């Protein structure tokens, strides 16, 4: 019983702390990696709430696929920012 409470409180603190850190992180890459970690801890919370189906979906989709989507979008965003910077730096600002 004590162990379960300990596990619950650790899980909840980890969830809230990860959410706080990922939303406040100055570095976007770090924020996305923290988001993936957040998704994996969420999967643990689903297991704790007796929802193994949701845990599987969250681990595969919420953490895995969303993370991959975000990382690839960030890479393309940086590529785009580089090319626009090179081609028209002076007219870039309005």
């Amino acid at each position, binding site marked *: 019983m004590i162990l379960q409470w300990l596990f619950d409180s650790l899980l909840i603190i980890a969830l809230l702390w990860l959410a706080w850190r990922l939303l406040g992180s100055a570095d976007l890459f770090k924020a996305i990696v923290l988001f993936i970690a957040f998704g994996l801890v969420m999967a643990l919370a689903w297991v704790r709430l007796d929802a193994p189906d949701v845990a599987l979906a969250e681990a595969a989709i919420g953490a895995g696929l969303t993370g991959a989507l975000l990382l690839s979008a960030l890479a393309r965003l940086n590529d785009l920012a580089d090319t626009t910077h090179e081609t028209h730096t002076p007219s*870039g600002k309005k």
Partner: protein
Amino acid sequence: MSAVLLYALTGAGLFTLGLYALIIHAHLLRKILAINVMGSGVFLILVALGGRTAGAVPDVVPHAMVITGIVVAVSATALALALVLRVQAATGRAELPEEPLE
């Protein structure tokens, strides 16, 4: 207080944190992250409230709804990311203007 209720309250906390970040950040990618955190909060509340049954077996209808929700969230995120990339390509930046537009 039961553990189930504690998880529901955590969900409410995640929702509020996400809402704050959604309003405060100008970068569009951060807004997408914030919406995803808000969504996770809502899912947590749904499943936690489904666990209030007397026996050991929780109510599975919220579970099914949350699985549906996770898939919808990932497709919405993908569409939003494509839109952000278009914004970046069109305006050269993926942020909302910090000063209000005149």
